[in-house]
């Protein structure tokens, strides 16, 4: 009984209901091609959301991760093009390192100057975007200039199915990368001291400090990991769409934060799980993708997404209020 009352179970139930409804309106939803493309759309946003989850559990919020992602992917790809380097492993390490450094910058300001994370990350996002676009330019690295190895990496499929119209659709292998990262974050959060101290810090900063949690280490761990995931996801995105655009991900922070909240994380900190976040991301991506399938006029899409965010947050607010009583 307890199991069914858990946040994850509730969201999963909502998700299933929505899936059935969409399937009834348009049976094409259950087509293999659509399901594969849904899975693909989850990967990059999902990895970013896991980073945001860590930050939200710690009681913070981050709106700079899209800027970090864009910076990491654009700096890495431009460097590869300039050096005429072709490879996969080293670039991903480079993108992740860029992410970690930028995340550490966030952590430093938040920890040293005791400023609200929202304001700090708004500022750093503006710095990062401004510097990347101002110093490196705005030109998009297209498929003909993109390093081949990266494209080949992003192209890999687990299985391919030939659809009725003759086109082959594949299930991207990147889904494995996403699942592996999710597993690691889950283990860290549930079974390590570091993970538990993030929950403790997010629940009550002062109690955590008195209980012996190294708060500075916790903040740095959270923001650096989120930066790492953002940088990694950025380059992964680039290799999956075969181009590097420094203006990518603008406005994505709202979607990702909404997905994480939808997944049951509390913006006050101390609550949230990997499974819930993954379901939240899937729900948001699915609804966005399915609005077209359901023949909703494209101009109405933003309204629908907004209503979903408000409804989801109203439900969590109601839940948190019951907890307080």
């Amino acid at each position: 009984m307890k199991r069914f009352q858990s946040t994850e179970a509730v969201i999963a139930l909502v998700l299933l209901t929505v899936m059935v409804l969409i399937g009834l309106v348009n049976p094409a939803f259950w087509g293999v091609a659509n399901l594969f493309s849904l899975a693909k759309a989850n990967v990059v946003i999902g990895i970013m959301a896991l980073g945001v989850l860590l930050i939200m559990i710690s009681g913070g919020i981050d709106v700079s991760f899209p800027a970090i992602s864009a910076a990491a992917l654009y700096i890495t790809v431009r460097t590869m093009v300039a050096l005429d380097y072709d490879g996969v492993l080293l670039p991903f390490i480079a993108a992740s390192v860029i992410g970690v450094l930028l995340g550490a910058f966030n952590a430093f300001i938040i920890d040293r100057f005791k400023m609200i994370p929202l304001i700090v990350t708004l500022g750093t996002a503006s710095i990062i975007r401004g510097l990347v676009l101002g110093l490196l330019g705005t030109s998009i690295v297209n498929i003909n200039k993109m390093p081949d190895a990266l494209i080949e990496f992003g192209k890999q499929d687990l299985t391919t199915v030939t659809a009725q119209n003759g086109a082959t659709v594949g299930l991207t292998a990147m889904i494995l990368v996403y699942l592996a990262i999710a597993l690691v974050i889950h283990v860290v959060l549930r079974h390590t001291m570091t993970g538990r101290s993030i929950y403790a810090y997010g629940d009550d900063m002062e109690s955590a400090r008195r209980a012996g949690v190294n708060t500075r280490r916790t903040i740095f761990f959270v923001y650096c990991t989120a930066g790492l995931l953002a940088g990694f996801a950025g380059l992964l995105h680039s290799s999956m769409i075969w181009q590097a655009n420094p203006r990518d991900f603008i406005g994505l922070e709202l979607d990702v934060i909404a997905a994480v909240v939808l997944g049951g994380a509390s913006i006050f900190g101390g609550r949230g799980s990997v499974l819930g976040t993954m379901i939240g991301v899937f729900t948001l991506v699915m609804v966005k993708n399915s609005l077209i399938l359901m023949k909703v006029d494209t101009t109405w899409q933003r309204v629908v997404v907004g209503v979903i965010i408000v409804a989801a947050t109203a439900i969590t607010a109601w839940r948190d209020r019951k907890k307080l009583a």
Partner: protein
Amino acid sequence: MSAKAEEKPLLRRLLGSDASIAQLAVITLVIFVLMAAMNPDKFLRYYNFESITYIMPELGILCIAMMVAMLTGGIDLSIVAIANLAAITAGVYFRHPVVAEALDAGGLALVLHTAMGVTIALLVGLAAGLVNGLLISRLRIIPILATLGTGQIFSGLALVLTGGPAIVGFPETWNWIGTGKLLGVAAPFWVLILVAAVVAILLRRTHLGVNLMLIGTNARAAVFAGIRSSRMILYSYALTGVMAAIAGILLSGRTNSAKADFGASYLLQAVLIAVLGGTNPAGGKGRVLGVLLALVALMFLSSGMQMMRASNFMIDAVWGAFLVLVIAINYLRSSK
């Protein structure tokens, strides 16, 4: 010497006991001198300051709106969406065949319909603000998330109304609000002064202002003190919505057009300027004068940098760096 002695009390009175205002005034002055020194022949021209008085008001009003939302520890991420929605609704009204015909006739009808358009825009702002306020005060949704969601809804509705492209061709009286001159000073600048004065008086001299500060300082104590918190919070978001609509009127009047995704960068800048102006994002502290000083400082900074042919992206980066710098200064000053 004697002149200096006379000056001091006046200055003190003007700045109040708030050290952050004095600090801001110094920063603004430094930026002014720096930009004037770096662009000696361009920056100090009358034309430069005149163009600033046209561009500044719409952003300035959004900043004051953001400051009001922050007083209770909240934030309003939907102000730019409200501004666009208000301007677009008025634009749709002007497009209505009957109204368009009357507008073509000109004369008194032109003025009357413009007044109607302004009223409609303000009502849209009020309604949007009330929606935010109800979600935050009654349903207890966290302000960031509530306004993030409603921001999507408002800009989505704006998109539905226009179908995508910008609405162009507002009546000339409407455009006068954004580009005209009154007593030798830009009309939008008068609007900014009026809004700033009204909000300053509201915050300093009325129950609403005092209550908002109390709620922001200690929400629980405010409840025990008998303040009707949720009603006050509702009012503050309604005020924010109306101010956003005013900014929307100025923006559409200045550019003679309205679009669902105009001025997206204003959101970040409004947060930034409100915080720079000494507003505490955790609530309880904020002054109109501080916000105006920060606004002027950043206006000087960006107009000076534009003269040095810096790209807009670099200006964004400098704004961000400036925010982080001021956070650091504030921290170091308060920890002394």
